């Protein structure tokens, strides 16, 4: 159903993961995950080590935040994120690279999985692991389905359907065994369900590497499934449909159809948290862009809290033709207005787009070609939702399922009249979701 086929532009696919040098100072955001911001537990002047807890969850849906560096806490206060909105950040001046005791920094693969399910969940939670596929939903919540719900299938998302992004591709090539052990850990937590690793067909090397690692490790109930190249193949709901041929009903959760979807990056983070005691303080991001020379294309292992401008500097500076810089992919990423913002757990790319590629054309008139409806992976009718949004018909919007929109951007991408469909639909989706929520609260 639906979907679009943008040029996949995986320009940095050949670039090995490099480790970024440490900057003189990092700013760690307290809002790195979906849900309530974390609460700082350090004070100005404290000396912290790498991996030390610096903030505790601010609610049930929240996560621990750990220090990515060793050094002195310089300040705790509001700082602008990449959209220019203030978030609480902890500023740490880097001094050396002293890690917490108990963190295993070797490359040795640890295959033996702890027996106790609760212990694993605790380690995942204490490690501050969140979903790295985009939503940054706390992993321990997702891996602990409510009573009565049984997970039948753990889907490992290795589709990386966004153009340009190659970080998942690289970790599947370079650390497939760790990813699979992570998956096995999650299988155990979920009560021994099967596991399917979904990878798009445009990544044959990753498919081969994962298959080789799988046969080497010999995990039962685990398989690699090749998926068609299509955006958004890696959307949670689309992936469940592709792998299990089941659809999550509107307003429901994947667990309702027995599915749990986790990104390959999350699986790696789970492995490191459980087997190596290493909390989620590093991740891989791609620095890439159209017309950017190969020397400026990179896949970096970064630590959270690094200023984006610092990474851009290390990667060779902002290319001349970059008119827009995006954190994430070109379809769902966020345009950066503040380069002094810092990396967070879920940062997946710094993407430069040229003016040609990215500047929006002047919007014309809808000719009712229906391309948006064909492209919508949720089977919605964006042209209709757009029209209803413009006249603020919230009842009509709810009836036409605006709340099901996954904001993938296929409608705006495909509109030949360049009508900003998603911009408006996103607004009304928020309003309708608010109405539904308040109605449920009343009930």
């Amino acid at each position: 159903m639906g979907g679009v086929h943008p040029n996949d532009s995986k320009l940095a696919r050949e670039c090995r993961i490099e480790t970024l040098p440490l900057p003189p100072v990092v700013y760690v955001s307290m809002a790195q995950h979906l849900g309530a911001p974390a609460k700082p537990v350090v004070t100005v002047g404290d000396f912290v080590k790498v991996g030390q807890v610096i903030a505790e969850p601010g609610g049930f849906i929240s996560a621990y935040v750990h220090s990515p560096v060793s050094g002195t806490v310089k300040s705790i206060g509001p700082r602008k994120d990449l959209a220019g909105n203030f978030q609480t950040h902890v500023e740490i001046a880097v001094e050396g690279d002293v890690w917490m005791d108990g963190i295993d920094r070797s490359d040795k693969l640890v295959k033996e999985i702890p027996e106790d399910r609760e212990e694993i969940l605790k380690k995942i939670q204490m490690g501050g692991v969140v979903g790295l596929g985009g939503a940054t939903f706390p992993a321990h919540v997702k891996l602990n389905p409510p009573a009565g719900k049984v997970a039948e299938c753990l889907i490992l998302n290795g589709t990386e359907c966004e153009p340009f992004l190659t970080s998942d591709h690289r970790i599947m090539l370079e650390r497939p065994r760790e990813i699979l052990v992570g998956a096995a850990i999650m299988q155990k937590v979920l009560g021994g369900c099967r596991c399917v690793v979904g990878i798009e067909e445009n990544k044959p090397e990753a498919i081969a590497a994962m298959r080789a690692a799988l046969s080497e490790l010999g995990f039962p109930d685990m398989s690699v499934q090749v998926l068609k190249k299509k955006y958004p193949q890696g959307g949670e709901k689309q992936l469940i449909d592709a792998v299990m041929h089941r659809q999550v009903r509107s307003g429901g959760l994947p667990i309702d159809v027995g599915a749990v979807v986790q990104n390959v990056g999350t699986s790696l983070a789970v492995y490191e948290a459980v087997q190596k005691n290493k909390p989620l303080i590093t991740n891989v991001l791609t620095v890439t862009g159209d017309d950017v020379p190969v020397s400026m294309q990179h896949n970096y292992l970064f630590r959270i809290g690094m200023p984006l401008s610092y990474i851009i500097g290390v990667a060779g500076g902002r290319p001349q033709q970059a008119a827009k810089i995006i954190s994430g992919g070109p379809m769902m990423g966020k345009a950066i207005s503040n380069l002094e913002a810092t990396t967070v757990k879920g940062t997946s790319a710094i993407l430069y787009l040229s003016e040609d590629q990215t500047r929006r054309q002047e919007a014309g008139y809808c000719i009712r070609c229906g391309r948006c409806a064909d492209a919508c992976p949720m089977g919605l009718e964006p042209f209709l939702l757009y029209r209803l949004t413009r006249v603020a018909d919230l009842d009509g919007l709810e009836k036409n399922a605006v709340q099901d929109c996954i904001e993938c951007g296929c409608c705006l991408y495909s509109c030949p009249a360049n009508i900003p469909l998603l911009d408006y639909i996103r607004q009304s989706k928020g309003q309708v979701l608010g109405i539904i929520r308040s109605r449920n609260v009343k009930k």
Partner: protein
Amino acid sequence: MEKMLVSPSPHIHAKRSTTSIMVDVIIALMPAVIVSILFYGWSELMILAVSVVSCVLIEWLIAKFLFKRAELFTPSAAAVTGLLLAMNLPSTTPWWIAVIGALFAIGVVKMSFGGLGQNLFNPAIAGRVFLLISFPQQMTDWTAAPGFIHTTDAISGATLLGVYGEGGMEALQALGYPLDTSLFFDIGGSAGEISSIALLVGFAYLLIRKVVKPWIPLSIFGTVALISGIFYLADPMTFTGPAFNLLTGGMILGSCFMATDYVTSPMSTWGGVIFGVGIGLIVMMIRYFGSYPEGMSFAILIMNCFVPLLNMAFHQKKYGRA
């Protein structure tokens, strides 16, 4: 670029614009246009030029001076309307009739509803029907001047369907029921009726370029073939057969290029199928039982009225909703 651009996602766009779609439609019409010029000569070329130029000009004048909103002017879409209108006119049409047709099509049918995307009826067909009613004599005079290609057949001055409408099956058989000719060029008719092959080649181009989907034309063809097949089998001496009906009277042009107009056709697949079936039914009723020989234009216009209803009734299947 000193200042960075910031916008909501997505940040890239498919390389497809309204203009490029319209240009594709114009390209798709070219084979039929070339054949008709070869066949009807300079007079055909002039009528095409007059129609296209006047449609574009009228739309520009209305957008600029009447609405004072220059952005309402879409030259490519107006050119498509002009081209389709001209292909519906006999090559002998006086130029001023084409101008009046363009004025009606663009001014009344399209712009008075608000311009591109807002019109209820297909402008080219509405313009053609308007001319047919206003100037019945000129609009059914198929005595064309000889073109660049001379055929052995004398140009008779009536279309096959016209012959059938006047004299029934006997008159048609007196002509030798010349079906084979209409595959490549009709013995008479407008530019859009001349060559079914050329039109189908153009339509194939549209399908390859994913400009239109085949469901509407297929459902029209299917319905027409089914109905005429039943009637023909029941009484071959009174009713014309499927092949005849599919190849004459602007059936191909109407189905492939006019009924598939985005604005005036349903958006969903099933809506489109119903729309096509409706057109097929109406066109066959007119041809068999009406006093008017052809009927494609009327059928499309009548079904145009149902498009808003069909759009309301048929939605595409949503994910995760029964």
